[in-house]
């Protein structure tokens, strides 16, 4: 018969086949072979190491020593646990494994869903609460990094005219903070928005614009990004999904994170397309509210499409950060009526902002 327990003295690597007897104040550990006492442990100094959820056999130890008693016989463990209240952990049965798996599994699925919702929709409400100063700092640092090797156009009157229009638009859209417009010398024919209401126009865009309504249209579109906090939302969503993947993979696997990054990129691009549609719609609304000519957005896209008849955004589909240009033209087409966005003098200054 195998002994009901094994005893390790904590000083040498010997294992003793043992049995156990409990008295009122002591646990007596006996040699299995001849019943001689190996040690006597005061009950008050006993402690259980571990539990049956994690350990195959929770260990019994005397506090402050390295010695261990392994009670292999479950019946004896139960007996001892019943006898000594402090040792209940020796025999405490864990919740059934199936129940734990189902419980934690369901919770996990629900949490992933919630986390996803929080990332996808929660940013809508959370990002505007982010202190504006912080957003400006973030935007400025990105701006500095992006334009470190570029020349800024500093035609005073032109920059002033652009900033004036941008801030009027922001106010028309009930945006409570100031916005700042910079013009970078050169190309591409593009403009973009950074966190904290920072607008960046490339001078090629201003040069190639057919009329002032187009510049105003692009600006209204960018203000659309500003009032919807798109730049910060984009960053937060990307980081959020990245975090989700890391957490669900147990924080272990690089491989899984890499796969996740790929999915995240596609998600970011999908977000991008949704953002562009929002910004287009808001841009048109701002112009209409200000009773300005609102045909600039559509006419600018038409001009781009004329130059490059193949609609690149439509061609590359799910890989595009922007919706198909044709679709955007249809959504933003407005009559060429309304007040001009710039006076003649302003428009002249804007055209010469880099000279």
């Amino acid at each position, binding site marked *: 018969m195998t002994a009901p327990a094994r005893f390790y003295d904590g000083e*040498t*690597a010997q294992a003793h086949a043992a049995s156990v007897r409990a008295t009122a104040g002591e646990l007596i550990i006996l040699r299995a072979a001849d019943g001689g006492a190996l040690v006597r442990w005061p009950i008050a100094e006993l402690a259980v190491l571990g539990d049956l959820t994690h350990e195959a056999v929770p260990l019994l130890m005397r506090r402050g020593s390295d010695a261990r008693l392994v009670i292999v016989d479950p019946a004896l463990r139960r007996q001892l646990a019943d006898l000594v209240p402090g040792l209940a952990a020796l025999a405490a049965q864990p919740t059934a494994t199936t129940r*734990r798996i189902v419980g934690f599994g369901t919770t996990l699925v629900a949490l992933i869903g919630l986390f996803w919702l929080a990332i996808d929709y929660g940013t809508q409400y959370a990002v505007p609460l982010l202190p504006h100063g912080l957003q400006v700092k973030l935007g400025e640092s990105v701006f500095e990094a992006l334009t*470190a090797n570029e020349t800024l156009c500093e035609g005073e009157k032109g920059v002033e005219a652009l900033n004036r229009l941008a801030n009027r638009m922001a106010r028309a859209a009930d945006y409570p903070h100031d916005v700042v417009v910079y013009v970078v010398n050169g190309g591409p024919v593009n403009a973009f928005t950074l966190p904290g209401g920072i607008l960046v126009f490339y001078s090629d865009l201003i040069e190639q614009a057919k009329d002032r309504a187009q510049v105003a249209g692009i600006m209204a579109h960018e203000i659309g990004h500003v009032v919807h906090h798109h730049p910060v939302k984009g960053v937060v969503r990307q980081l959020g999904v990245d975090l989700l993947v*890391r957490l669900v993979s147990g924080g272990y696997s690089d*491989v899984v994170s890499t796969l*996740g990054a790929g999915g995240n990129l596609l998600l970011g691009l999908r977000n991008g397309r949704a953002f562009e549609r929002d910004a287009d719609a808001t841009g048109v609304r701002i112009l209409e509210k200000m009773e300005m000519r609102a045909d600039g957005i559509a006419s600018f896209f038409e001009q781009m499409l004329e130059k490059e008849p193949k609609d690149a955004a439509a061609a590359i589909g799910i890989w595009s950060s922007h919706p198909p240009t044709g679709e955007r033209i249809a959504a933003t087409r407005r009559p060429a009526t309304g007040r001009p966005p710039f006076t003649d003098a302003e428009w002249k200054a804007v055209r010469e902002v880099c000279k």
Partner: protein
Amino acid sequence: MSDATSPWAKAAVASSGVPGSAGPAAAAPAAPDLTPSRPIYDGKLSELYAIYLRHVVLMLLTLGWSRFWGRTRLRRYLWSHVSVLGDRFEYRGRGRELLIGFLLAVVMLAVWGGLMYVVWVEVFHERPFSSFGVFDAFSLSVVLLGIPLAFVGHYAGLRYKLSRTRWRGIRCGLAGSAWRYGASATGLTFVNVMTAQLLTPVVSVKLARPRIVNLRYGTLPLEFAGRASDIYGRYLGYYFLNIVAWVVAAIVLIGAIGGTVGGLDLSEEEFLTLFSQPNLRTVLLALAAAIGAYMVFGLLVLPLRCWWQAYLFRYLVSRSRAGNVLFATAITTRQMWGFMVLNYGIVVLTLGLGWPWVMHRTMKLISSELWLYGAPDGASIHQSADRGPRFGEGLLDMFDVGGV
């Protein structure tokens, strides 16, 4: 198994003064006890999953800060379900120790970042290269330092885990300097890369040695009698077969892809449409192509690698000993495949949720393939005074190379 005769036989022969060779068992008269045994793993996959799922749920709730405690619980389960000679292992690490280790590593990096900043501002005043900022310099330095630090972290992490591991109440441990190991590992890896990996046997043996001879069970150090020259022949065979396999795999792959795309007879535009507006059929086709490529690659190149790794592993195990206890393993190329390739596939395909399964498989592999000959002389092995590091694994965690 084609390993050379065990060096331990020679030692036994020398000490007993009897000529003859063959295996350790033949080193007769004062025959040491060489009863074979294997570790027993009696964990259940379902129980492991219950612990793991709880860990992942808490990870989500705490945004990852619970990982130290989750890791500890998983280790407790795995350690406690492995027994050698009838006695189970015990893991006594604590989540708190891992947390503090992690925070210390963060502080170290922060101090380093601060120093870089001060040097940048004080020494360079103005930016020497306009597009290269202090943040880039910091990132670059961390990447450059990352490789040596990952080795240091690996060694230190091993030391932590061993110091929290007990068998028969006696603590294990790892002596030696983690920094020295990191320096030598970095140097050797660098030289190996410079010489087109031809030094791999030397690097393998030189890096295995400190990890084995510094290992302690209580007061008992392990011994290692490996030499790179023993395994060079097999390695060179592997090296050249590997080159041939790559060439063949590349030819097969290029042929297959070229044939398929050519056979479809698509215009550039149609091809672009397929790529940008993928329908289910395209996705399935792409998936099939990816699996095909994986099979070609996997069938030719990976088995060779597993063949070498299995051989190396058998060699390193058979050249290690702990006092009276000799080790051996007959792990096959196929089992190495299951360990290296299949496990990797499981983790990737399950997006990480297959981890417990992989751990379970690995424990089962160890318990079925590791043989011990003999039993330790318990009375002569004492508890070591060294309690190991107070905190754990900070660097390891930082550089994300720590599994369980």
